[in-house]
């Protein structure tokens, strides 16, 4: 396999890591007003992701950074072409990150209510934006010969990219509910599980709609296999949720998103950002890539760095593996 292809796979892995990890913590944020009936319950929900959401978000930063280093033209064209959606993602992520930290710092119902709103909005918008961004990179944009967007600021917003936006949101919603079923105890857990069971068949529809569209337009036989794996995993996740096996359900949802990402990016390869104005303007793993030397350097860094990340992030999940319930929440203490 060429270095360019390896780095294409690495970047896909970073995006997958991001969708898998921040996927569920977005879901938790989205479900805050749905599952959390009082302040203590909302605190339980937030604290299921408290120690980990920041580490999860770094997957986005590294995915973007790796694109910059390994495929500068991909990063440059995509990020400037989808300018306004990305801006919305940034604003939402800023608000959300600050909200987690600041929400409990003043003991006032109004203060908490306002930050809760920021968390909820900040958890809906980024998966929409990321979904739109990733679908745009798979389905392409009108790019000129320099890789710049032709047309207006909303060129990246079309029915098919909006389907991608809904796909990621829908997945995050179910994934978050399954995570909560796994991480909470008591009544809250049951509520999360029931929600996941009911929501799954509807919420995953856009994802499979998108996969079918992409498979129809540019898929190969092996991406069809991945699509089927995603479908089987989604059905199995639903059955495990019904059978009260939340760990297995959560894992099955992980397989669903992994297989979905394989389908999408498998259909994209060897392009990284197709131009809808003609193949000559398309960015590919070859013409968008950095020099072999840079890729080699990055490979060494990645070969040592990435496994270490998996180990210590895995350890974090192990340290905070206990289920939490309203009984675990300490009283509010602020100056």
């Amino acid at each position, binding site marked *: 396999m060429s270095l360019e292809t390896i780095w294409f796979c690495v970047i896909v892995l970073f995006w997958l890591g991001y969708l898998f990890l921040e996927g569920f913590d977005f879901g938790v944020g989205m479900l805050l007003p749905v599952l959390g009936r009082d302040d203590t319950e909302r605190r339980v929900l937030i604290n299921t992701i408290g120690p980990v959401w920041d580490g999860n978000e770094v997957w986005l930063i590294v995915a973007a950074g790796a694109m910059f280093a390994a495929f500068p033209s991909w990063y*440059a064209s995509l990020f400037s072409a989808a300018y306004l959606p990305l801006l919305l993602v940034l604003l939402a992520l800023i608000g959300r990150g600050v909200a987690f930290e600041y929400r409990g710092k003043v003991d006032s119902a109004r203060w908490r209510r306002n930050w809760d709103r920021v968390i909820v909005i900040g958890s809906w918008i980024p998966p929409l934006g990321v979904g739109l961004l990733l679908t745009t990179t798979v389905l392409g944009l009108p790019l000129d010969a320099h890789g710049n967007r032709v047309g207006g600021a909303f060129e990246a917003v079309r029915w098919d990219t909006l389907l991608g936006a809904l796909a990621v949101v829908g997945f995050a919603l179910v994934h978050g509910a399954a995570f909560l079923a796994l991480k909470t105890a008591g009544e809250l857990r049951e509520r999360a599980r029931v929600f996941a069971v009911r929501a799954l068949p509807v919420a995953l529809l856009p994802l499979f709609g998108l996969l079918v569209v992409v498979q129809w337009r540019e898929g190969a036989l092996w991406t069809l296999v991945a699509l089927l794996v995603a479908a089987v995993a989604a059905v199995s996740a639903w059955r495990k949720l019904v059978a009260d096996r939340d760990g297995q359900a959560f894992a099955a949802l992980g397989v669903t998103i992994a297989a979905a990402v394989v389908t999408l990016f498998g259909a994209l390869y060897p392009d990284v950002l197709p131009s809808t104005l003609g193949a000559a303007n398309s960015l590919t793993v070859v013409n968008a890539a950095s020099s072999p030397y840079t890729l080699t350097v990055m490979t060494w860094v990645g070969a040592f760095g990435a496994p270490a990340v998996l180990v210590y992030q895995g350890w974090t999940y192990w340290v905070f593996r206990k289920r939490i319930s309203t009984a675990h929440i*300490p009283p509010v203490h602020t100056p």
Partner: protein
Amino acid sequence: MDVLQLARWQFGITTVYHFLMVPLTIGLSVLVAGMQTAWVRTGEPRYYKMTKFWGKLLLVNFAMGVVTGIVQEFQFGMNWNAYSRFVGDVFGAPLAMEGLVAFFVESTFLGLWIFGWDRLPKKVHLACAWAFSLATIASAYFILAANSWMQHPVGAEIVNGKPTLRSIWAVLTNNTALAAIPHTIAGAFSVAAAFLVGIGGWHLWRKRRSDDEHRSVWRSSIRLGGWTGIIAFAVLAITGDTQGKLMFEQQPMKMASAEALCHTEQPASFSIVAIGDVTAQNCEDVKTFNVPALLSFLAHNDFRTEVKGVEDLVTQYQAHYGTNYPDDPALGELAGKPIDYVPNLAVTYWGFRIMIGFGAISAGTGLLALWLTRRGRIPDTKWFPRLALLSIATPFIGNSAGWIFTEMGRQPFVVVPNPSGVDGVWMFTAQAVSRISTGEVWTSLLALTSLYAVLGVVEVFLMRRYVRGGIDGVIPPEQNDEEGKKTLAFAY
């Protein structure tokens, strides 16, 4: 305003804003890890209280540093896509390393530190504090290596019209970076030091008459802050001098404009302050108070050597890098226009002086605080807490001025040519900007600036609350858990 100007304003605002949070995070996280080490080793409660109190302020600030950092990474692709395409092969590598090697460690171990008080053995928990704080320094290292490459490109050559990385080692050990890193880290410590002295000084003064149980916490904090500030300033001065000498060689125009030195002088005198208009770009009417021959010494370690002035340098730059911008439609109105090689003199001249002056004030306050608290003394005068609180702002101002000087001083280049090394690697700022609409950049400039303004108010409000709340605000009263230790030691 056109896209170029808007994108420059946005970069300036978001960078200076981000760099209000970052130095405090770097300096304070290392000092808090040190406090916790002292607690683990000695078991003294005052070190525990220090860790808790300063740790809380660290967290309030850290959240803002993280979220504003994402904007920094994204805006290269959004506003500066031509730059990203041109330099990605070289510049992208340290940026990606920062994410992969530093950010993951930082965010993961911070989570473990915040929530791990009762879940981890004491020493493992302490190790998390160190992992987090050292990762903040590692992240500064990578980002400064990337920035230094823009100031002084090394380890690359032009292949097919683009800089191509030849040696990552050269990029990571760029002499510009090796001077910038200790300088910036020391700047970060001087922020944290002023914080300790200012807030500790205020609390100590408030408790001066009563026999307050937390008094030792504030005393230790002031002493730690005072010493940190003095050491940081010494490092700042030494590395600043090294940086200056490198800059005379690598970016002579930046240094000449930092001095508003119009004409070449031999020996050159150092300007303390200027009266008159340094912004008049011919700088003829400026009277400055000078120290004879000092600039020659600062530039070359020798009191007699020649230092090139702005006018001679303009001729030299025009000969090397052309008199006019290329006739490229991508440059907009600048296409074919003459290139102005002189950075904004008012900004560079005053930026340089504000950086040095405010840095010195904060070290002076630290020294004063050490003197006033010597051998168990408690300062009784009202002016001391006021001065200490006010001087919290000084290293922030110094740092910001330093960055503005460094970045504005390299204009009109985004990648400054390397006069003694790599051939042909440079880029004009005007060539670096994305081909997008002004509407898009206006939207992001206004949206980000307003959000930053709101969040700045919130952060200051929370900081004030926690500062006023003192130790009691960060350590909850003992609880009686009926079923043993069921509740979490910390929860959002």
